[in-house]
């Protein structure tokens, strides 16, 4: 066993945005910091590598953000998506703190993307990282190196020594790393298929994991086993329908399929099972993972005709195409007769109206068991295209409880003295359900700063 003689003021587990920020804030406050990143250097940054933006509150134009996005509007959005599964005082504190996120990052070399002509109106609520989350990761690692933070790669925490709600040190394999405080920022368990199977049963074997294969939730499990308060349930996850041909792990953003609202979706029995035109796609894409997960073999097929070509973000894999519905069915392994009937019934049920994909156009079907309530155009213009769909897990909600100073709560409602948590591992405290674009990064940013500040304060006073 290696026993380092050094006792760090702050030991941070997890090298994504939350952990990096906690480490940087603590080091800037004068603490000695060791950052343990479980992945090799090339895959550092956890799921931050796959992110694109954060969502800061602002009372006026802020850096690349236009207009106003104030606490009340933000709170309304959060309340709506979580259906009340949040902690209002903590959430409001976080929303207010988020106003400083962009400035904090920019001062440390992170770049944001100026608005481009012609893009959507997200310039008001979401600040986009130039080049994506990996740019943020790279910039913060550079900054951390400049602060002489000891950064270890391939350093997954395998055990922690814990006594009377107090952290003593962490094991990375055989190595013992002693610290006065500990920041747990090692993400969720979405890449741990065995754990997903415990929660979901065998269907979990057909899930694809959109993010890093290194988020296996080992630290989360350690903390829960040692008596941390559990937040959320293991079967809660953000699941979208992604291309069935995506890699098992790490496919990221490009594997999404954005044409569901333009066509019909059938299961392996060639039957439709949900209203494809319920609402705008960005508002609905996160329910389709779960919908597909409930279908036999966890597979779906979205079918469009040539009218929809070019009207959605180009998918990463080419569509299966055919000049007849039957031929298409054979290509994608469905029963041609049944698919023909499904399409015919759908086409016959389409009511008159004017198609307009930019609004809820009310162009609907009538009389079907499952109606499509918007954008229902007949699937009748060859060539026809099909994309297969599988559930793609983005992140999990299960986590540890924290208070507003990011201190970890124990299952008996007491506070840990020197363990803090930040990022996905505690996001469920604020986001008990649902999702808002950029909210995950905002939680990680704010709680990363709080955890770093509080950990440094504790370590430097003890």
């Amino acid at each position: 066993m290696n026993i380092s003689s050094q006792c760090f003021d702050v030991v941070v587990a997890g090298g994504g945005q939350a952990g990096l920020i906690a480490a940087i804030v603590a080091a800037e406050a004068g603490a000695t910091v060791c950052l343990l990143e479980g992945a090799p250097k090339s895959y550092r940054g956890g799921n931050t590598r796959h992110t694109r933006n954060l969502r800061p509150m602002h009372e006026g134009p802020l850096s690349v953000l236009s207009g106003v996005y104030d606490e009340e509007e933000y709170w309304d959005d959060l309340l709506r998506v979580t259906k009340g599964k949040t902690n209002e005082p903590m959430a409001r504190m976080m929303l207010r703190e988020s106003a400083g996120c962009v400035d904090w990052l920019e001062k440390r070399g992170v770049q944001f993307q100026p608005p481009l002509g012609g893009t959507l109106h997200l310039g008001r609520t979401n600040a986009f990282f130039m080049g994506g989350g990996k740019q943020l990761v790279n910039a913060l690692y550079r900054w951390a190196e400049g602060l002489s933070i000891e950064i270890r790669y391939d350093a997954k925490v395998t055990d922690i020594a814990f006594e009377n709600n107090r952290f003593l040190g962490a094991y990375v394999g055989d190595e013992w790393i002693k610290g006065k405080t500990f920041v747990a920022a090692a993400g969720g368990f979405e890449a741990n298929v065995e754990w997903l199977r415990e929660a979901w049963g065998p269907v979990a074997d057909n899930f694809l994991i959109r993010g890093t294969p290194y988020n296996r939730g080992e630290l989360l499990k350690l903390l829960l086993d040692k008596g941390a308060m559990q937040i959320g349930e293991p079967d809660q996850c953000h699941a979208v329908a992604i291309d069935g041909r995506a890699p098992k792990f790490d496919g990221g953003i490009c594997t999404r399929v954005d044409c569901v609202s333009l066509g019909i979706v059938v299961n392996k029995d060639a039957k439709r099972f949900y209203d494809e035109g319920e609402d705008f796609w960005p508002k609905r894409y996160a329910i389709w993972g779960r919908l597909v997960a409930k279908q036999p073999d966890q597979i779906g097929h979205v079918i469009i005709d040539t009218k929809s070509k070019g009207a959605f973000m180009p998918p990463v894999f080419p569509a299966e195409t055919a000049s007849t519905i039957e031929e298409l069915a054979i290509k994608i392994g469905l029963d041609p007769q049944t698919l023909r009937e499904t399409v015919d019934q759908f086409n016959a049920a389409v009511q008159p109206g004017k198609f307009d994909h930019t609004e809820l156009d009310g162009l609907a079907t009538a009389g079907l068991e499952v109606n499509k309530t918007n954008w229902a155009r007949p699937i009748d213009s060859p060539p026809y295209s099909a994309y297969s769909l599988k559930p793609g897990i983005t992140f999990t909600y299960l986590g540890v409880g924290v208070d507003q100073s990011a201190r970890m709560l124990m299952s008996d409602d007491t506070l840990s003295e020197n363990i803090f948590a930040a990022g996905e591992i505690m996001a469920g405290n604020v986001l008990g359900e649902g999702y808002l674009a950029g909210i995950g990064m905002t939680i990680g940013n704010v709680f990363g700063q709080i955890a770093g500040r509080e950990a440094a304060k504790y370590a430097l006073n003890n």
Partner: protein
Amino acid sequence: MRSTTNIDEAARVMTICNACRYCEGHCAVFQAMELRLEFNTENLDYLANLCHNCGSCFHNCQYAPPHQFNLNVAAVFADLRQENYAVYAWPAPLGRLFSQNGLWVSILTAIMLGLFMAGGAILTGADFFAAHPNQFYGVISHNVLVTLFGSVGIFVFIALSLSIRKFWRAMSLPSPLSLDWLNVWTGIKAALSLKYLDGGNGQGCSYPTEKPSMLRRWFHQATFWGFMLCFAATSTATVMHYGFDLPAPYGYISLPKFLGILGGLGLLVGPIGLMMLKLQADPAIKGRSNGGMDTSFLVLLFGTSLTGLLLMLLSQSSWVGPALCLHLGFVMALFLSMPYGKFIHGFYRLIALVAFAVEQQKHQAVVGVVEPDPDMIKVKNLG
């Protein structure tokens, strides 16, 4: 339409990039990509020539190796440029000079240096190492120089023009007479300011390391404007010679000298800086097939400038003969390699940027499009 492994790889990479789009803020490549659904030889040649090989998109890529998608836009476009420089070259057989470019440029330079040294020595005989009242014209006469460089210049001009015309047509641009000159001006501005070497927001691109830096832009500007000032110096001297009967040599306080000295300094600082950055740069983004093309071009520019300044300093001494021949050797090698070396990149980049300005104004793909696609919508990935 040619089909090569570089085209296939570029199409594969762009298809993944087009489904991701996180890099759209970095440069024109990604904004042009977003106007398309499919990638073909023409639009990939276009995208490749919009790329400055800065590496920002590589360092910031969530799919960069070791990820199985193995994306490296900078490298694949570097290789594709090397390939399409050859494709658009005139006369076509000389396109093969783009492979192993560094080698043949070095050989050419050595030959030119040797020829001029030998020629100078033969022409002046014992006076090769002597001062001349007429300075360098005393070594080789004005008329010989004009005949020699004039005829080579005409060939270079024709070769460049025809290569450029071929590329221009591949970019689906209309005849220069029916162009919208506002778009041309937008393209020229982007080219002259090296707009897309700013990383997308003025902080610089990831070159030579992952850390954003403006160094490449500054050194490239020193090189480019250094070259242009030297060109202006020669042009001014030509006008003074023929228009005002004021032949060289000129004093230090004269327009040709002023422009030439300033340009010469730019051509010392710029190439040295670019060379130093190149040595530090991540080898991952360089591509496989540059074959020393960039380096040989920088060495030629540097050599031309250094020997030019030396000649100026030595023009009244007995070393004027060797200094002149050395300088002329470099200039001739630079001239001859213009249509078949790195020099050509400026023209193709400029044309690609003009095409980009046209497309941005129309919000529609133009290059490589069989029929325009009015239904293309612009959407953004939230991540």
